[in-house]
């Protein structure tokens, strides 16, 4: 049986160019980038070249890029590092209700440490109202953290407007950009973000590597301790082959982004219009918002999403009910319920995330499989 992958927001396959570069680096560039000698210098050169590639994709200065083990670590470092660096006794943090677990759980940890946390609601289209950020500001606010693009819906948040409001109050802004990087254009200056999280494996680099953009002048306390790597922001011998892979992936994304996002948006629209046209009782969650081109989240009324994922997998289509990080959870998606969806409708929703390997034929085959699965599931639920 052929298997088709519609879960690129969970992770992406490593691009062939990325794989080739990484393997050659693994084999040949084994020096420790901190070593003085020839081998260390070779590794350091690769490391800094990758830093320039990552910086170029987001229009940053390379010195503002800190490599991490992935998006989760970048989010943890941004939240814990900024709030702890502020050193205020009654610190206050603003996040949104639809953040990824890496931000939600970091905020919850800070809350246990005595930090006040405001979780902003989102409208029915899945975006934060910048005016809500303004209203939530307090004298003790030390950080605003709002994701750039949502992992379940693809909705793009009004980061630039929020940045203006945050900066008026003298508060830095962090954006979790894990689901935006490589899908839409990212310019940290146009966005006005002070911190921006990135993950390699969401843009065709391997797992285990990511980066945090830290605008020059942003105060950040380290959250782990060791040597003086990454300008004292993130200790530990750099994972040069993975970082090199991330660099190549960023360069590749920069080259292909315009054409690929247009292609994916057309496929996404094809998927949505065929599903909505052929299957009654369906709709797109967060449809009215500005969205990343590859993501759609669709409800199928009276269908159990968990059963549907299994049924589709057995037909060869890999999809998900939402974040892979919350697979198997019984509580409905916090993102979908934040949109105002009922628990039933949230449980009946599936996320389809397209990517480089997705073709129109695959999309059409998926629609056929969806139609067959929904018909089957609705028929048996009538008899049950």
């Amino acid at each position, binding site marked *: 049986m052929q298997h088709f992958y519609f879960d690129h927001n969970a992770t992406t396959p490593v691009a062939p160019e990325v794989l080739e570069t990484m393997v050659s680096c693994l084999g040949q560039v084994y020096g420790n980038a901190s070593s003085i000698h020839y081998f260390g210098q070779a590794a350091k050169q690769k490391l800094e070249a990758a830093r320039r590639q990552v910086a170029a994709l987001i229009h940053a200065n390379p010195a503002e890029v800190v490599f991490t083990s992935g998006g989760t670590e970048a989010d943890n470092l941004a939240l814990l590092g900024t709030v702890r660096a502020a050193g205020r006794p009654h610190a206050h943090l603003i996040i949104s209700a639809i953040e990824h677990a890496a931000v939600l759980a970091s905020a919850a940890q800070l809350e246990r440490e005595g930090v006040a946390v405001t979780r902003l609601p989102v409208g029915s289209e899945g975006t934060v109202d910048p005016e809500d950020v303004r209203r939530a500001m307090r004298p003790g606010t030390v950080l605003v953290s709002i994701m750039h693009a949502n992992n379940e819906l693809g909705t793009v948040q009004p980061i630039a407007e929020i940045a203006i409001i945050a900066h008026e109050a003298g508060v830095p802004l962090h954006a979790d950009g894990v689901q935006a990087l490589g899908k839409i254009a990212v310019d940290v200056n146009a966005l006005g973000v002070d911190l921006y999280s990135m993950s390699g494996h969401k843009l065709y680099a391997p797992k285990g590597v990511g980066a945090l953009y830290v605008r020059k002048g942003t105060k950040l306390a380290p959250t782990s301790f060791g040597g003086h790597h990454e300008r004292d922001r993130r200790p530990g011998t750099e994972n040069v082959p993975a970082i090199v892979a991330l660099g190549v992936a960023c360069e590749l994304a920069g080259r292909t982004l315009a054409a690929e996002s247009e292609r994916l948006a057309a496929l996404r629209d094809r998927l949505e219009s065929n599903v909505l046209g052929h299957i009654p009782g369906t709709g797109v969650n967060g449809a009215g918002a500005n969205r990343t081109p590859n993501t759609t989240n669709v409800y199928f009324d009276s269908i159990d999403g*968990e059963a*549907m994922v*299994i049924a589709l*997998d*057995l037909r060869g289509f890999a999809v998900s009910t939402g974040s892979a990080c919350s697979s198997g959870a*019984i509580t409905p998606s916090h993102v979908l319920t934040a949109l105002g969806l009922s628990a039933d409708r949230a449980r009946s929703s599936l996320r389809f995330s397209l990517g480089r390997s997705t073709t129109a034929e695959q999309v059409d085959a998926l629609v056929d499989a969806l139609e067959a699965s929904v018909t*089957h599931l609705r028929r*048996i639920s009538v008899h049950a």
Partner: protein
Amino acid sequence: MPQPSMPESAPIAVAMSGGVDSSTVAGLLVRQGHKIVGMTMQLWNQRRLPELAPETSGHGRCCSLDDVYDARRVAEQVGIPYYVVNFEKQFEEQVVQPFVDEYLAGRTPVPCTLCNNYIKFDRFLEMADSVGAHQIATGHYARVRFCDASGRYQLLRARDASKDQTYFLFGLTQKQLSRTLFPLGEMVKPEVRELARGMDLAVASKGDSQEICFVPNGDYAAFMSAYLKDKGIEPQATHGEIVTTDGRTLGEHQGIHHFTVGQRRGLGISSPEPLYVISTDPQTQRVVVGGNDDLLCGRFVVRQMNWISIEGVDTPVRAQVKIRNKHAGAQATLHATGDPNCVEVVFDEPQRAVTPGQGAVFYDGDLVLGGGWIG
């Protein structure tokens, strides 16, 4: 009911607990050439009540991460697609909550039967259906066969009498039985372990699971206290009097849910002859105690009857009746009552501790005629 025709490609869904029995079922069916989907039901979050034996590993308790790991490993070994399906909400509503309510009402529940009725052979069957599987297979020790003469699916005791689980399966409907396979029903446990070893299954020498999967170490009173606390329910009237059948007060107790009919230990009363719990009364919170003879019961009514191998009783029918899992069974006559959902059991010899909340299951030799609830 005729066997429904099945498409060649329809898989069988195997309920995999991570134990040796269900793992062997998966391996066996694959070996027989069937298309299989393995699924583990996540029923209870063992981290929810951390005060219950936090140091012990989850081994032998249901739905621990270890069990899911084991099931996944076996699925990989035998080469089948595998999924974890989450029924925690249904399990709590239909098994755990009724279990607690029953004890608080002075009865002695059988959660495994509720789980079979409402989760394993209902919700799981529905999930199997959803993913295109028409039949399910489990590691239960029991047998099913279709009887042409009666046109009914029959349930029979397992060949391995020591492992027979039919007592817990009396609630299965004809529809459920028509779609269920018990591949271990004709085997004895050592054969199952031998098969598991032969297939080199990672769980071949794993220990057997304990009786009530969500209650650590069988301490159901500790479980109930922790559960009620977790739910924010203040245990009300958790103490009462211990009285004799003739009304004398002998002492006090810490809540009727600590007592079950026939219990001798834990009364905290010294008495010249042995005292047993005869009954408990949730209204007055009284525990009534008496001598062994007070426990004997010659006849009782069974409610919410489910008939399996026969359609029912119009005229009196002879049967062997089991009133709890460990009961050997006793000869009795089943009498119809005015209510088709109720049957009166009249024992040839009075039996000890007929306990409200337990199941009563009727047998004719190996054949399970049906069963229902006591009290």
